């Protein structure tokens, strides 16, 4: 199979089939993310070829790291929390390696790439790596590359916590492009005690904790506590390179044994990518489930969900060779660390010094850890649409401000983490629904508006807020919203995407590429990251 319609540019007016695919997938299962991977400290990996799928129907010949056939990894989150967890022989990105600070990590890499590819390797930037058993490599030392069919062993101490990239150190312009990259996450050895209120609410709603570490901190630092975590790896593909590579490995069955730098004749410049991926998938595939059977070689998704007030750890890596400005709608991100290096105040090491960003620009090889949250603080209207005059108890939930101004007294309350200063403030001047009146705006006739697929159906959040405000199907016509319907999830949706906007396309088709919808769900909606 080869990329289809490569030369046929498709304008935005042709988006309908893609939207329908997205909708179908979302109706099948509401996917929610996490940062799944495999735990060490010993990993037996292989590098080999297969095909990855793209939402335009293309199957792209790629190379990826995977778990060696005799290696049975331990998954985190475990398969009991995340059914279907698997580590195939080849995947893009490679398996997320999860280790703990101070551990002696061993990564054994077997080169099962086609002979024409020559040697391969892994670089672990940020670690002091010792390689044994391999053949000479340019970046990996005298015995750091794996020859075709051979194995190399890398050992290093997981020095400091945080998120980092790993990727091929051999013919990187071709091998990284082909998919040989992944993430390594080091968990802190001496984490702080996190007094996190959200855990109480999570357990009150029988939610599973999907964090990689039970103590809930990303670093050995009190300001790194978090409630959920998501990993986003940005990369791009030029399909012409992949087509050439596929032809070359078929044409050249063997290469000189030494030095084996491969014998492929693939032109990697000028570079002209057409696929822009997050965790190896393009939108809408990235919003399908982790480990979905449709993507046997792209197990990880990008589909963050959260409740108001939850501190959400974002692990962001630039892979590939371009920069991508990742714009998080909804709020700023506090950068904790770059490449695992915590950024602290020069005068007070208990305080953070990383910037606050609404666009976390990814650069190849750079990893960032940051914390995001959304509470709706300061909108000057009650996002839950409370109405003190209502007869509906859900419309009259109390809001009792804690020391920080949020409603956290009752962990079972649907409006847990409501910003109490805006409680009861009306948005609409004269609404016809069961929400407070006397606010500043009049919403127009719904006939002059077009509803989005992720529109919850009204301006409001909460178990029955949309139903109270506009009716059970949301503001119609043309129909109730479908990906985030008023009758079930009805969250607040925010687009997280590359702001080099041409990268939110899949081989010239909009929408696609580096894009996802982040959902802030009302507290009673159970976020199940195992889907």
């Amino acid at each position, binding site marked *: 199979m080869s990329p289809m319609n490569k030369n046929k*540019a498709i*304008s*935005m*007016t042709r*988006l*309908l089939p893609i939207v329908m695919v997205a909708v179908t997938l979302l109706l099948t299962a509401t996917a929610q993310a996490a940062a799944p991977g495999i735990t060490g400290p010993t990993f037996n990996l292989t590098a080999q070829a297969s095909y990855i799928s793209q939402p335009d129907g293309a199957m792209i010949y790629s190379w990826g790291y995977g778990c060696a056939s005799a290696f049975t990894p331990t998954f985190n989150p475990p398969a009991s929390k995340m059914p279907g967890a698997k580590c195939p022989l080849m995947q893009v990105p490679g398996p997320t390696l999860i280790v703990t600070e101070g551990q002696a990590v061993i990564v054994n890499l077997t080169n099962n790439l086609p002979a024409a590819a020559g040697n391969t390797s892994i670089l672990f930037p940020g670690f002091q790596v010792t390689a044994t058993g391999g053949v000479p490599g340019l970046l990996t030392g005298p015995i750091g590359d794996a020859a075709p069919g051979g194995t190399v062993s890398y050992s290093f101490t997981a020095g400091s916590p945080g998120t980092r990239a790993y990727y091929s150190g051999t013919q990187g312009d071709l091998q990284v492009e082909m998919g040989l990259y992944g993430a390594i996450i080091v968990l802190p050895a001496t984490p702080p005690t996190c007094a996190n*209120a959200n855990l109480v609410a999570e357990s009150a709603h029988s939610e599973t904790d999907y964090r990689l570490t039970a103590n809930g901190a990303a670093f050995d630092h009190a*300001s790194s*506590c978090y409630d959920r975590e998501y990993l986003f790896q940005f990369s791009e593909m030029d399909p012409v390179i992949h087509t050439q590579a596929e032809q070359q490995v078929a044409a050249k069955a063997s290469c000189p044994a030494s030095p084996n730098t491969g014998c492929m004749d693939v032109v990697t410049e000028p570079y002209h990518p*057409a696929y822009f991926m997050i965790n190896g998938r393009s939108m809408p595939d990235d919003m399908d489930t982790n480990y979905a059977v449709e993507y046997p070689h792209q197990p990880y998704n990008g589909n963050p969900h959260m409740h108001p007030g939850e*501190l959400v750890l974002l692990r962001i890596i630039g892979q590939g060779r371009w*920069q991508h400005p990742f*714009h998080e*709608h*909804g709020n*700023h991100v*506090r950068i904790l660390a770059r490449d695992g290096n915590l950024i602290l105040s020069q005068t007070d090491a208990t*305080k953070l*010094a990383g910037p606050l*960003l*609404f*666009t976390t620009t990814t650069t190849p090889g750079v990893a960032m850890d940051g*914390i995001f*949250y*959304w*509470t709706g*603080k*300061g*909108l*000057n209207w009650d996002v839950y649409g409370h109405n003190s005059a209502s007869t509906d108890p859900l419309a009259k939930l109390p809001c009792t*401000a*804690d*020391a*920080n*101004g949020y409603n956290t007294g009752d962990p079972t309350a649907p409006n847990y983490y409501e910003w109490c*200063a805006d409680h009861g*403030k*009306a948005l609409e001047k004269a609404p016809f629904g069961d929400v407070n009146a006397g*606010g*500043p*705006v009049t919403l*127009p*006739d719904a006939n*002059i508006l*077009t509803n*989005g*697929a992720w*529109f919850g159906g009204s301006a409001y959040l909460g178990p029955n807020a949309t139903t109270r405000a506009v009716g059970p199907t949301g503001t119609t016509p043309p129909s109730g919203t479908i990906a985030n319907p008023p009758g079930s999830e009805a969250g*607040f*949706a*925010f*687009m997280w995407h590359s*702001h*080099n*906007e*041409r990268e939110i*396309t899949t*081989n*010239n088709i*909009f929408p696609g590429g580096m894009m996802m919808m982040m959902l802030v769900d009302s507290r009673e909606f159970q976020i199940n990251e195992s889907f």
Partner: protein
Amino acid sequence: MRKVYQVCLPVLLVCLATVAANAQSFRVQCPSTTALHPGNPTDQGAIKCQQISGGDGYATMADGTQTYLFAFGPLSGLNDIAKGLPGTQLNSVFMTPYDPVAAPNSAASNGAVGLVPNPEAAHDPRCSKASPPSYCTTGFDGHVDPRQIMDVGVMNGNMPAPMMAIDEDDEFFLTLTNVGMIMRPDLFEQHTVHFHGYPNASAFYDGVPDASVAINIGGSFTYYYLAPDAGTYFWHCHITPPEHLQMGMVGQLYVRPRQNRLGSGAPLFAGLQAQQGDPRTSCPNSGPGTTGPATDILCSTPLPPSNTASRAATGLYAYNDGDGSTHYDVEYPIQIHGFDPNFHFVGMTFNPEGFADMKDKYFLLNGRSYPDTLNTTGYNDISLGAGNSDFVGQPRSSTAFYTQDADGVQRPSQPLPTVINIPAGGRALLRISDLDVSEYQTLASLGVPMQVIAINARLLRDQAGNNLYYNTNSITLAGGESIDVILDASVPKPDGTAYAKGEVYYLYTPNLDHLSNDAENFGGLMTEVHIN
């Protein structure tokens, strides 16, 4: 797919016709009072309003090429925008009917286009009862005459889009009126406004069509926000972003800090301390995570070390710094953008657009390339004599570039020159944002150092209160980023001499291939800094 739309268009028109019979689909909203601003002398901030059109238009590139835009245009504050100012207006000005021939600075030349008394007022039974609605006396309730909206709004797109400026504690009512794209009747495009970078944004008012509502042709929608924390934000349409942003639907937006409202000589540190009493802006005491007091990990302005700085008699502040370090004498919003002429041509000529091939060849500061960035001559219809009716309600005197549109009418297209005039011994704040959709761009300063004080609308200050400003001679931005830079002519040059009146410096891009206007090999992302 086109056929589906050919079927849908008549259906849509029928729907719109039905709506028109039931309710007015064009309308503006700008209440005189709200719960937060009841009209008392003690009110903090004010009610501010603006109306914009979503449609199309043309702009003139520096090599003379007339370029087609999908664009927003001004439907309020036209006189201010013609002078290169923000179009944001107080309620009293916005709700004064627009009169294009009113004298410059008259409230009537900045009012909402289309505003007319609601004829229903005479028949509304509430008007003859006690406590009648205010419109019973004024007649103005946001009812607009669609003919005026269309007369002025069609093809009046600006590049960049109308500028917006508000102060902390303002309530901002932004009405987007979709007048349609006359040159592309096959695309009955919706438009939206995304307030890029707003903290704790509302999904409903975030402008993402997938996550909320989008505004059809023939409709008006009023976005509502309480001004967020001070900073340099920006705004753009979020419909098919690679297309609508490339085609020009990008604009500037900034929020000024409370600190500006302190009286001359008032201590700045105490001013910021007082803000810690407001739970919304408190740093040590508003963070989610625990039920006990928690530092807000996203807090915008932690207290600096205690200091004696006081409110300067003149000038303004970029942020609530509490130490005077963001003081400036003049400010210049500068938006970086890029146009791919091939994409714009294809966008005008009904052809399918390719995204992967996008390659910008015009590199723009505020919608213009060098040397147009220096042109402050503008256009003066009055000098052409009375009775020129070609201007269809546009201001008759303007510093804007005018471009002849496809209907033969000249309309303002690019209102903003980018000449940085710094008073000798003064400080200029550059509010730089980038909405390029295909690549990163660098802007360098020759001579005057750049002090970077904020990135992404947030002061560079650690949680312990230390300023992390840095000096540089270049900044690099992707689309979707903003940065605040101070050009400081109050600090002597390295040889000890002062920046003197008459000196000229340059802002330009060291991406040397961006110093071009398509085939012209000198131009692009460049402008001048004048010491006055």
